[in-house]
């Protein structure tokens, strides 16, 4: 990656260190930032001003052992020297009441991704105008990507049901 890119990333890492709980450069093209839920919007708008103007993915990882759902925003940029880097914003949200502020004002293209995260993992994004089923049928209860939603594994004899 270009020399200018490294300079930019290091300045960004230092800047984020003050706000976020933990910032580390996991790989050459990946910066992992752990943030508490309330400071998320502030850090996201800082990233947007630094050039990371859209989000590559919004995902929810269910961790039942630590009683927490980890919501991960991966921010990306298209301009010349920042294009190789992905900034990973991680926040932890309690599993029984997963609530978070929506980021569609900062990153407009997170609209459908947040809606899908609610649909599959069950994280409620406060302020999202259209939180309804996206991929699952409209009358579906429960959130399939949670670890307690068990799918029958590949048995040796797949029994014929129905």
């Amino acid at each position: 990656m270009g020399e200018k890119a490294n300079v930019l990333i290091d300045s960004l890492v230092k800047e984020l260190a003050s706000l976020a709980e933990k910032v580390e450069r996991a790989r050459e093209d990946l910066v992992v930032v752990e943030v508490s839920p309330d400071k998320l919007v502030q850090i996201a708008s800082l990233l947007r001003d630094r050039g990371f103007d859209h989000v590559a993915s919004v995902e929810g990882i269910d961790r039942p052992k630590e009683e927490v759902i980890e919501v991960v925003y991966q921010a990306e940029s298209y301009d010349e020297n920042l294009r190789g880097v992905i900034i990973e914003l991680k926040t932890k949200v309690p599993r029984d009441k997963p609530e978070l502020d929506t980021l569609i004002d900062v990153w407009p293209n997170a609209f459908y991704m947040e809606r899908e995260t609610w649909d599959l993992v069950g994280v409620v994004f406060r302020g999202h105008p259209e939180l309804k089923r996206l991929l699952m049928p409209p009358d579906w209860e429960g959130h399939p990507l949670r670890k307690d939603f068990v799918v029958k594994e590949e048995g040796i004899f797949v029994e014929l049901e129905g």
Partner: protein
Amino acid sequence: MECPRSGLILIGNLEESARKAARWLIEKTPVRTIMDWGIMFSLWPVHFTTSCCGAEFAATSAPRFDAERFGFLPFLSPRQTNLLLIEGTLTRKMARAAKIVYAQMPEPKFVIAMGACAIDGGIFHNSYNIVKPPQLFPIDYFIPGCPPRPEAVARAIVLLRRKIRKGAYRVSPNGGEG
């Protein structure tokens, strides 16, 4: 009104006698063979791509495996077509649509289940969002493969034509479940 002599005396209400006349006309063998010949050569599938096998369904009507040679012309709405091709996985949401489309199609209709997913779930067999088509429609032919080659789809069409030619489709009860 009981008729003393046997044979066909069409009196009584119009509706019932019209239906009897129609059935009498259809049952005559020359009319039935013409009807089978007509249906056999114009199997129009409805434009309803259910899943990723749709790419191979499109390749079947493409120039290399030209299915229009059999009179197989994908047509617009379920009303004018008589063949429903379930292409690949049938998710719950799509299954509702498929049942409605099957119900909308006029009577001499046939169903071909294309791809391993349409037979018994294929690679997605243990997914919670999958429905197995044999539970929904009376299926005439299954095409194995994921995705099946266009030759396999063409073979299914030819087999279906042979079945129609023999008139075997009339034996199966019309009101398949669903």
